């Protein structure tokens, strides 16, 4: 399969993977990783240009929000691999309705004897940040790809059915509370919506 630019392989233990993808897409969309990460990959041009505080806040918020979003899918993939809906890891980067949604989803799989194997791929972008100074809420838009993250029957190890995975238009609200960013709302469209 051709790998699209900006693909994020959601992988356990790779919390900064979004940074790679965002930098790759840097020339296309005006987003970047948070400040320290950008300095690692951007060409050095001598003393840094003075950036306004607002810009730095926004860049940090974008990086943190996308990081939380990707980490949430990593947590979900880890829990869904064994249908462990009681895994506290689910709550590390999700809260509120989004957390309930993930927990119920893993539980439903458990009831049905389904485990999920493989890796989801994300392509998140931040579409809105509020408030403009010191943002605490980010809206993320993603074309979430589960073509290689599929349902299997735990008992037999066989694929659950012949319905293909696909690309799902996904919207997430990521909120900062006490210095920690977590996904608080999540809407995943059906396959074929992006």
């Amino acid at each position, binding site marked *: 399969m051709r790998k699209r630019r900006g693909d994020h392989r959601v992988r356990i233990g790779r919390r900064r993977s979004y940074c790679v993808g965002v930098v790759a897409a840097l020339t296309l969309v005006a987003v970047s990783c948070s400040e320290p990460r950008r300095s690692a990959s951007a060409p050095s041009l001598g003393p840094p240009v003075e950036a306004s505080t607002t810009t730095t806040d926004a860049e940090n918020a974008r990086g943190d929000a996308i990081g939380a979003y990707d980490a949430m899918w990593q947590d*979900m*993939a880890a829990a*869904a691999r064994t249908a462990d*809906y*009681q895994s*506290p890891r*689910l*709550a590390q980067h999700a*809260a*509120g*309705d989004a*957390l*309930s*949604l*993930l*927990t*119920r*989803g*893993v*539980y*439903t*799989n458990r*009831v*049905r004897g*389904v485990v*999920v194997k*493989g890796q*989801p791929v994300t392509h998140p972008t931040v579409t809105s940040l509020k408030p403009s100074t010191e943002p605490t809420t980010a809206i993320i838009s993603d074309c*979430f790809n*589960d*073509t290689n*993250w*599929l*349902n*299997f029957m735990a008992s037999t190890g066989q*694929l*659950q*059915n*012949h*319905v*293909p*995975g*696909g690309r*799902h*238009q996904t919207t997430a609200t990521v909120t900062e509370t006490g210095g920690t960013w977590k996904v608080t709302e*999540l*809407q*995943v*469209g*059906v*396959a*074929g*919506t992006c």
Partner: protein
Amino acid sequence: MLTRAALVTVVLFAVLSLGAWSAWADGGSSAVACQQSGAPGCTVTAGTSTVDPASNATVHVQSGVTTGGTCTDWRGMPAPCTDPTWGWMGSNGCYWKLDTDYRPPAWDTADQHPNQTGAWFLFTCLGPFPGTGGGTVWLPTKGGFDTPPPTPVVLARQAVNRLRLATPRIETSPSGEQLVNVPTWLWVARSAWAPMNATASVPGDAVTATARPSSVTWRLGDGTALVCEGPGTPYAQGGDPSASSPNCGHTYRQSSAGQPDEAFVVSATMTWAVTWQGDGQRGALPALTTTTTTELRVAELQAINTAATGT
């Protein structure tokens, strides 16, 4: 006009696509996407019909469920009104059943529903691919919601899932090493030989499942399988050592020498007959089993004789 080469390419592509299609399955996000209220809808397959989870809030039972008629699924196709695994047909064309087992983890603070009247349900939108679509949802059981009646069988299966059956404790006489040609008495501890109950309930309705021990199947490691209709008779102290058990015994004709660990692997499997009753009805469900495995050494008796006469 298509050239021959182009035509071949088109046909090949179609075949390859079909092949790939058969190697796919529902994506991992289906469990999330399909349970969402307010989501753009959830197609259960790539068809044109959609199930709108947002309508869950007003789901009610289709009339055929109570009248014994035919129901209509989410695709508009005729479908049985009750599915033995997935429950009864709701107004959204998906099957519903109560889930009395789900307890959201404590850290899932938004889903605790303290002091709320309601219940957890699993809904499933059957189609060409059973067991997909839908999800686990909390529904209030009053205010705009017409409580679907769980069938007693659905409740009974939930009750059975809650049964915690005892495993047999294996007892033998002689109590340790067995001897070739000396009767071995077999029994399971009486403490495990008792009916067990579990109940699943909804407001105004409860079904109790009862599991009763009915037999023990012994596999004795020398190729013998033995079904005893009861727990077996414990050997009484001071009894005749050459007597056989009246209802559950075996006499080994070969020693366990040469077996792994110099012992036979012996298992006792208790079979439990399962019945349920409630809501003015009763019935039976498939039997359950519990098994314990141990090792039993069997020695040649003449080895002792030889030792005794050799002095």
